[in-house]
C-alpha cells in the first residue's frame, strides 16, 4: 500500500518551491502526496491529516516561525490522541533549534542540502504502523 504523506506549509512565508520539490520526489518514490498549498494554520494541518488518514506529515517553514508552529502541530496531534503519524520538518532551520524540535516530537529535520533520497529513505524506514 502506498505511504500517504501530507506536505504542509505552516506560517506566512510564500516560499513553496522546496515543499513542491519534496512533494514531487515523494510521488516519484511511489507515495501518495497530499499538497495543501501555502499559509496553513497548525489546526488546518492536523485536521487535514486526520481526514486524509496520512502516515506522514512533512512540514516546511522558511519564515523563522518553526519554533512556534512545528511544536504547535505536535501539541494538537497529541491532544487528539494521534501517535501513529511520523512528523518531519524542513526549511531554513538553525542547527541549535533541532534538538528542541526533536524533543517536541518532530522525528527529523531536513535542512538545505538534503537530498531527496535521504528524505525518501528516512520516511520509508521510519513510517509507523497504523494503530
Amino acid at each position: 500500500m502506498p505511504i500517504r504523506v501530507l506536505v504542509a506549509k505552516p506560517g506566512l512565508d510564500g516560499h513553496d518551491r522546496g515543499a513542491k520539490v519534496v512533494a514531487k520526489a515523494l510521488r516519484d518514490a511511489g507515495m501518495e502526496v497530499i499538497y495543501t498549498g501555502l499559509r496553513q494554520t497548525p489546526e488546518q494541518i492536523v485536521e487535514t491529516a486526520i481526514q486524509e488518514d496520512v502516515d506522514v506529515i512533512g512540514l516546511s517553514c522558511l519564515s523563522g516561525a518553526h519554533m512556534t508552529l512545528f511544536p504547535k502541530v505536535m501539541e494538537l496531534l497529541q491532544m487528539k490522541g494521534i501517535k501513529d503519524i511520523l512528523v518531519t520538518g524542513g526549511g531554513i532551520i538553525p542547527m541549535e533549534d533541532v534538538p528542541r524540535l526533536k524533543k517536541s516530537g518532530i522525528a527529523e529535520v531536513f535542512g538545505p542540502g538534503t537530498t531527496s533520497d535521504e528524505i525518501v529513505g528516512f520516511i520509508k524506514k521510519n513510517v509507523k504502523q497504523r494503530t
Partner: protein
Amino acid sequence: MGLAERVASGDRRAAARLISLIEDGDESIRPELADLHCRGGKAHIVGVTGSPGAGKSTLIHKLAREWRQRQKTVGIIAVDPSSPFTGGALLGDRIRMQELSTDPGVFIRSMSSRGNPGGVAKATADAVRVLDALGMDKVIAETVGAGQSEVAVMDIVHTVLVVVVPGLGDDIQAIKAGILEIGDVFVINKADRDGVEAAQRELQMMLELDDEKAGWRPPIVKTVARTGDGIAGLVDEIEKHWDMIKREGLLEESERQRCRREVLELLKHKAVLSLLSEYGPDDFDALIRDVASRKMHPHDAVEKIMEKRKK
C-alpha cells in the same frame, strides 16, 4: 465499537481510516461496509466531472460553501490519477479548498486511482457510503471526465454536473462522446471569458438533440467559480434536480439503477479476476503471445478462457 458504528456516531478518524482500508482493498472490512450500506441512503450524492483545468476543485469549494450557508453538511471525495510508472500520486485538490479544512461540517478526502481503473469506481462508491453514514447531507464525488473509469464513478451518483469552459470548442466536442447523456446539470465555468455565448449555444443545441430524460431538461448554468458568481443559482438547480427525483418517485428507481450498476461493476471485477486465476497466469500469457503474434484473434482467446471454465 466497530469502525462502522464509530463512523455512524460521527467519529471522523474512524471514517478516515475506513476509507484507507477501502482504498487498500482490505477484504476484512466487508462486514463494516455492509453495516454502513444498511445504515446509509440519506445523502444526496452529486458527481462533478469535466476536463482538467475546467475549475472543478474551485467550483466544488464554492458549492460546499454555499451548502454550508444553507445549513447542509458536505462530504467531498476528489479522485486524481496516479502515475502509471511509480504508483505515486500528487493530490492537490485541497489547495483550492483550504478554508473548508477546519469546518466540522465538511469532510474532504483525496483519493488516487492507484493504477487500477476498474477499482476507482468501486472504492469511490464505498467511500461515499462512509461519508453518507458519517451524516453528510451532500456528498460530492469529483473525477476528471476522461475515460471509462471516470464515467463509472458518475454512475453511482444521483445528480451529475458536467463542467465545461468557454473557448475550447473541442471540449464540447469531447463531451459528446458519452458524458453528454449522463449530465443532469451543465456548468459553463469561467463564464467571464470570451466565447461563453458560443459555448452555451453549442451545448444547448446538443442537449436539444438528446431525448429529454424523465421530464428533466438539463439546465445550463454559467458560473465564475473564482469569484463565486452564479454559484447560488447552480445550487438551486442541483436542488431542483434532487427535489424532482424525490417528488416524481424517481428516487427508488434511481437507487435501483445505481445499485444495479454497482453490482454489475463489482461482478465484472470479480468475474474477471476469478476467470483469470482459474485459467492460470502462465497460460494467459501464452494466449496473449498467440494473439500478439497474430496466430489468434482476441475473440478466440476469450473463448478459450471461457471454455476452460465450462469443463
